[in-house]
């Protein structure tokens, strides 16, 4: 008669005494446990094999209390394999056991992480941004402006010029299909130089240096149109949601809670360092060119301010207006088409 047997430790469940025993499966239904002072016959239905994980000690619980502990030997493996129920746990065990599966699992995890960051996150961020009410977005924008103001100075333009530019902005915006009226904030750029930003909630920030760089009001209209393109597509909010999700993921991986910051404080970082994606810039450009057509503003103004901006950026950080990945040349050509 063939049987399976393995050495184990037996505990009676009442005391912490450990007794060496031999566990033997006779036939197919009864487990015999024999050792010094121990002689038990346990029905298969009255025991439960604990989930086996790697080569950590394997255990069997007996329904009367007490149990067996097996060192991970080949005999114990054969005995427990015969005793345990066939279920999902065994499937997982065979996964963990195989080196090939481990490599496959690793590749799949890396692929899933990549797919999530490249495709999942932008989609989720766009969906999430659509759910954010306008007034919440505006609160975020105000918070971002407060942080941006740490880097900027009040505008030094004279009041007449300021009023004229704000009027120009309002007129340009009124021709565009925006959900709510945007607002222009003028600032002196200092270290940041000629630049313009779109904040959540429709706040557009433009520096005096950019105003001084322009030679025609329609060039400013072109910049407004591009920034309002970002506003229309809620790019800053989407970018913000993406970067905070990445921060959250990084936190989960490294378990470092201290790296989580509130959303608003990251706006300057997003605008100045991360920038928008190639696709977002193209969307903003397309929006700008289409709305300029509708308002009867020539594309050459868009191309002119782009080229002048590029020529002016000898030092300092790259303006947001230029920070896109598509080359300025391609964008100028696109505008001239």
């Amino acid at each position, binding site marked *: 008669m063939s049987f399976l047997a393995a050495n184990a*430790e037996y*505990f*009676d*469940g*009442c*005391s*912490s*005494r*450990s007794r060496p025993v031999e566990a033997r499966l006779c036939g197919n239904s009864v487990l015999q446990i024999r050792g010094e002072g121990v002689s038990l016959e346990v029905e298969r239905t009255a*025991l*439960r094999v*604990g*989930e086996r*994980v*790697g*080569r*950590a*000690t*394997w*255990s069997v*619980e*007996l*329904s*009367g*209390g*007490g*149990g067996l*502990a097996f060192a991970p030997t080949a005999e114990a493996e054969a005995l427990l394999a015969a005793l345990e129920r066939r279920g999902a746990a065994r499937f*997982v065990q065979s*996964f*963990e*056991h195989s*080196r090939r*599966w*481990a490599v496959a*699992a*690793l590749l*799949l*995890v890396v692929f*899933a992480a990549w797919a999530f960051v490249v495709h999942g996150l932008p989609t989720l961020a766009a969906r999430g941004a659509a759910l954010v009410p306008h007034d*919440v977005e505006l609160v975020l924008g105000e918070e971002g402006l407060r942080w941006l103001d740490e880097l900027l100075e009040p505008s030094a333009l004279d009041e007449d010029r300021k009023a004229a530019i704000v009027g120009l902005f309002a007129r340009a915006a009124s021709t565009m299909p925006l959900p709510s009226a945007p607002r222009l904030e003028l600032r002196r750029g200092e*270290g940041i130089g000629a630049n313009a930003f779109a904040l959540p909630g429709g706040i557009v920030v433009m520096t005096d240096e950019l105003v001084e760089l322009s030679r025609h009001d329609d060039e400013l209209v072109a910049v407004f149109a591009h920034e309002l393109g970002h506003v229309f597509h809620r790019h800053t909010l989407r970018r913000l949601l993406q970067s905070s999700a990445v921060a959250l993921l990084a936190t989960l*991986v*490294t378990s*470092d809670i*201290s*790296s989580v910051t*509130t*959303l608003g404080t990251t706006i300057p*970082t997003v605008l*100045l*360092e991360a920038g928008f994606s190639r696709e977002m810039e193209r969307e903003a450009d397309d929006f700008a060119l289409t709305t300029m057509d509708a308002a009867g503003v020539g594309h050459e103004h868009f191309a002119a301010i782009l080229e002048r901006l590029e020529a002016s950026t000898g*030092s*300092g*950080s*790259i303006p947001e207006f230029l920070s896109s990945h598509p080359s300025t040349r391609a964008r100028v050509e696109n505008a001239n088409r």
Partner: protein
Amino acid sequence: MDNAPSAPALVVEPRTERLRFTATGGEYFRIWIVNLLLTIVTLGIYSAWAKVRKQRYFHGHTHLAGSTFDYHARPIAILKGRVIAAILFGLYLLATESSPIFLLVVVGMYLLIAPWIVLQALRFRARMSSWRGLRFGFGGTLGESYVVFALLTLLVPLTLGALLPYWWYRRQRFVLGYLRFGATQCSFRARVGSYYRVFGVLLAIVIGLSVIAGVLILMVSLAATLSGMRVPEDGEGAPWVITVGAYVVALLFGSVVNGCLRAMLGNVAIDGLRLGSHRILARFDAAKLVGIQLTNTLLVLVTLGLYTPWAQIRLQKYLVERIRLEVDGDLDSFVTAQSESLSATGGEMADVFDIDLGF
């Protein structure tokens, strides 16, 4: 053999049993990666099963006096707890992003239910662990949990941190002092004075580190001003360096403080612990622990998280193997508690919260 009557009173050197941890990073990596994959594929639901497999792996590799520990929780119970925890965490996230009044309400609710959750978690964790077929248990009361996790938690900021060492003392006394193994109770003998001493040392470390950090920041900003005068070719590099530098400084600072805290308080708490008449001793070395945590964090970052299983095993091995049991008599005579002879199939708890409590 029978020399008792004539022999002089012998000073019997108490037998010490060291805990051993035999898990390896390579083996755990395969368990970890399969857990991770299945958790992703099932959108997080498998995480409860993953938790049980991890705990069973860790318990089954922890040896004391020739026998290993065991973990008995059922994943479904953990899943329930996780769903509730996720809802609470979602509420908290919502609260931090919206109105301050809502935040106040949520924080109030948290203080109201946190002590109950902590108690459930401590009970669950103890009851799901066993050694040589005997379950652990936890006998802390809800009333004391409220004192420690609501009242004192509120008082610590109100007293500007003067109660912080006392709060830690009460917390560790609660978490460790009410543990029992079978019917044998633990007792917690550490004194509150030891906690004030440890926090004094820690304060000195924090002040020392702050001075060093201050000098470093001064030097960096000086260097930045000097290089700013020379006008860098492109200013793109500068903000990155500062951001990364700030992260590195924060990481170093946090690791040193955290490692020292864990090591010193761990020694105080565990050394003050008795299981019946057996003494439990810990010899954590702050410098060693800081070194392990720092290199772990660094390697996890460099490998984009893939080093995590090795890091966990390495830390656990250090923590486990620095704990010893000074045996009084033998370890065979513990008995099960009368009230809770848990059968193999029954004995599950209905409501379970599974949260990490640090200790």
